[in-house]
């Protein structure tokens, strides 16, 4: 692995006029029938951004409703709003976010390959995503669903008058998209590495996406069958999940959470990967404890399958099962904590610069830690009985998903923006946006820990008046957050046309993706690289940045 050369002279950016954006056609058809992983990554980024804003619009309406204790929407509409928010954000934003955008773009580059193992499957997975997206939007537009993203039975299978089957079909389709992506990444990582690229020379980003793919591939099929069962039950009015007809609602919950708990690790593991790339680069130090970080990712993907019933502590499972799952849920905090320690140790005695990616990464470390620690709170059986179905849980998972994962997504977006587009984004605007996001996020979600502990229930359109002050704070934070999220849309878009041209390696980063021009040529590398050194060969001195 090469490091940036220290010549004392800024290099002239090589304007890569022949790159994946210009080669291979510029027509719509060439994009829609592409097999290039980089173009597919762009297609995904566009669609995911659209859904981020749809889910965000729902969140805006939710926070608007919660400004007053009696709400402004009817309970029925409110139920459809939080369901929309959950379904869209989980399945159409968070799960595909980093893997299908950055993973698709970068994994072949990082391992020295020309493409993924199965490019046509990759394109198919995008079409499945888009088709599923249309179905979901259609279901929303004709009336929506009110079951929550968790589709608990027998409400979803028997009582709800929303468009449940349509929503289930959409999630089923996007699940297949997920399985195909995971399959592609697993085979690619095993079989397509360049000569010399041994497992322990891989960037942590690749390991993280690999761990994510294992979960995608093994957990999503169980979701698929569960959704089929609910849809069949609803259409045929049978009762496998309905006690009055001889069924068991807990059977649904076991099957559902067997997928949905590992799903949260699908959502966060790629974020860990991004942070592990950004922190060494902006601290100019090799990642501390590489093997620990790598194996803790694998540990999370495995142990993540053993903890699902902690979502069911008060649902009626036996106390013995509650004990087992509570204990295992404590265990899984360990590998996450190991990562946080390693990132922090990487910072220690590093040469830290506060570019936007680093701001997002530092925000991630802090916010993820808070989210993760509150996970320990809810893993505790006694405490969970008190806070289940309150805003405490809502705050817990938003700290991880939004404070953590969305920050990682934005951090990665900024870090690799020069590579993907060949342009630099305006740094000061990016820093302002990052700070607004951090501030807005905490103002939105910290009050929710307090609200939850005080007893405010989640998924309710109204609440007792004594909670109003905290809710106003939270909604105020949401408006700041909205501005923070909207800003990148503008300045990143601007940079596409007016941004300074970026060279191959504007951050003086290590990694094979930085050894090829920005934007990369269609076939990624002119010559297949050979690798002989470990990753993250940074030295903690100021490097001249090539502009």
């Amino acid at each position, binding site marked *: 692995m090469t490091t940036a050369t220290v010549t004392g002279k800024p290099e002239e950016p090589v304007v890569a006029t022949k790159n994946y954006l210009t080669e291979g056609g510029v027509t719509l058809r060439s994009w829609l029938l592409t097999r290039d992983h980089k173009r597919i990554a762009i297609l995904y980024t566009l669609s995911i951004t659209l859904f981020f804003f749809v889910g965000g619009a729902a969140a805006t309406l939710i926070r608007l409703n919660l400004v007053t204790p009696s709400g402004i929407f009817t309970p029925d509409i409110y139920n459809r709003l939080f369901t929309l928010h959950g379904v869209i954000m989980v399945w159409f934003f968070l799960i595909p976010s980093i893997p299908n955008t950055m993973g698709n773009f970068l994994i072949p580059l990082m391992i020295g390959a020309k493409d993924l193992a199965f490019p046509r499957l990759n394109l198919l997975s995008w079409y499945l995503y888009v088709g599923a997206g249309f179905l979901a939007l259609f279901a929303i537009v004709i009336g929506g669903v009110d079951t929550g993203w968790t589709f608990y039975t027998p409400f979803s299978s028997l009582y709800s008058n929303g468009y449940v089957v349509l929503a289930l079909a959409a999630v089923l389709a996007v699940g297949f998209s997920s399985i195909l992506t995971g399959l592609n990444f697993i085979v690619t990582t095993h079989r*397509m590495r360049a000569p010399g690229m041994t497992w322990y020379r891989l960037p942590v980003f690749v390991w993280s996406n690999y761990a994510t793919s294992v979960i995608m591939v093994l957990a999503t099929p169980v979701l698929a069958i569960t959704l*089929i069962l609910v849809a069949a039950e609803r259409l045929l009015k049978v009762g496998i999940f309905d006690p009055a007809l*001889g069924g068991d609602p807990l059977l649904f919950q076991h099957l559902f959470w067997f997928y949905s708990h590992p799903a949260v690790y699908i959502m966060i593991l790629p974020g860990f990967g991004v942070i592990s790339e950004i922190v060494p680069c902006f601290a100019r130090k090799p990642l501390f404890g590489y093997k620990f970080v790598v194996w803790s990712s694998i540990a999370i993907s495995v142990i993540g399958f053993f903890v699902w019933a902690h979502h069911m502590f008060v649902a009626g499972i036996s106390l013995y099962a509650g004990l087992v799952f509570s204990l295992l849920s404590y265990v899984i905090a360990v590998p996450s904590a190991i990562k946080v320690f390693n990132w922090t140790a990487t910072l220690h005695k590093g040469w830290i610069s506060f570019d936007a990616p680093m701001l997002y990464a530092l925000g991630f470390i802090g916010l993820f830690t808070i989210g993760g620690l509150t996970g320990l709170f809810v893993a505790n059986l006694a405490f969970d009985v008190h806070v289940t179905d309150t805003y405490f849980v809502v705050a817990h998972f938003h700290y991880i998903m939004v404070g953590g994962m969305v920050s990682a997504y934005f951090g990665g977006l900024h870090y690799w923006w020069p590579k993907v587009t060949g342009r630099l984004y305006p740094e000061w605007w990016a820093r302002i946006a990052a700070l607004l996001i951090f501030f807005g996020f905490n103002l939105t979600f910290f009050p929710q820990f307090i609200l939850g502990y005080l007893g405010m229930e989640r998924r309710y359109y109204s609440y007792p008046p004594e909670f109003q002050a905290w809710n106003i704070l939270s909604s105020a934070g949401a408006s700041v957050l909205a501005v923070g999220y909207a800003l990148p849309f503008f300045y990143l878009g601007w940079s596409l046309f007016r941004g300074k041209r970026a060279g191959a390696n504007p951050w003086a980063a290590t990694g094979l993706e930085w050894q090829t021009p920005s934007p990369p040529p269609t076939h990624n590398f002119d010559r297949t690289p050979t690798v002989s050194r470990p990753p993250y060969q940074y030295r903690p001195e100021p490097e001249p940045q090539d502009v």
Partner: protein
Amino acid sequence: MSDTAPIPRPEPQYATAGQQAEAATFGMWVFLATEVLFFGGLLLAYTWLRASHPDGVAEAGRHTKVVIGSVNTMVLLTSSLTMAWSVHAAEQGRQKALTRLLAATALLGLLFLGLKGYEYHGEWTEHLVPGLNFHQDGPHARTIELFYFLYFLLTGLHGIHVTIGIVLIALLTVRARRGAFSARCYTPVEVTGLYWHFVDIVWIFLYPLIYLVGRSGP
């Protein structure tokens, strides 16, 4: 062994044809692992039903058509034989044998589906189709309905997999007839064979769970 057959060119992202073949085979095994979890979820539901309503399930099991089920199992096992045999023929570069064996496998698959359809028709006339025309008497009626709900889902999903397999094998037959495969290049046959054997294995487990329940009882 045919040495005059054209050496296949790998796709651009692969360095060698061997790498591409390995990736394809590994990819199929990963896919089969996902299918294990897919059917596995449904089997968890079945396990729950049988464990919590053993008498009802035993009674429901006695309504299943064991003759058709057993014949179908024979059919699928034989189709696995012809499929494995066809991979062997491909390995040896014997194009005509390959084509015929693939066609035989597809035909056996169609026979399976035909018998299944006949069986479903029988279940329709006996009012055993939940949600559509289910009507049974006796104290276990609800359990029988749940059993048949799972029965139709299990065999229906399996049947969809069989159908997909038949389509794939039919396409392979056409390609084989045109000489697309040689001793050096027959990965699609091998990979489809893996899929087909898996579909057979699923049925191997479904057979006793559906047809052999409660047979030793009243």
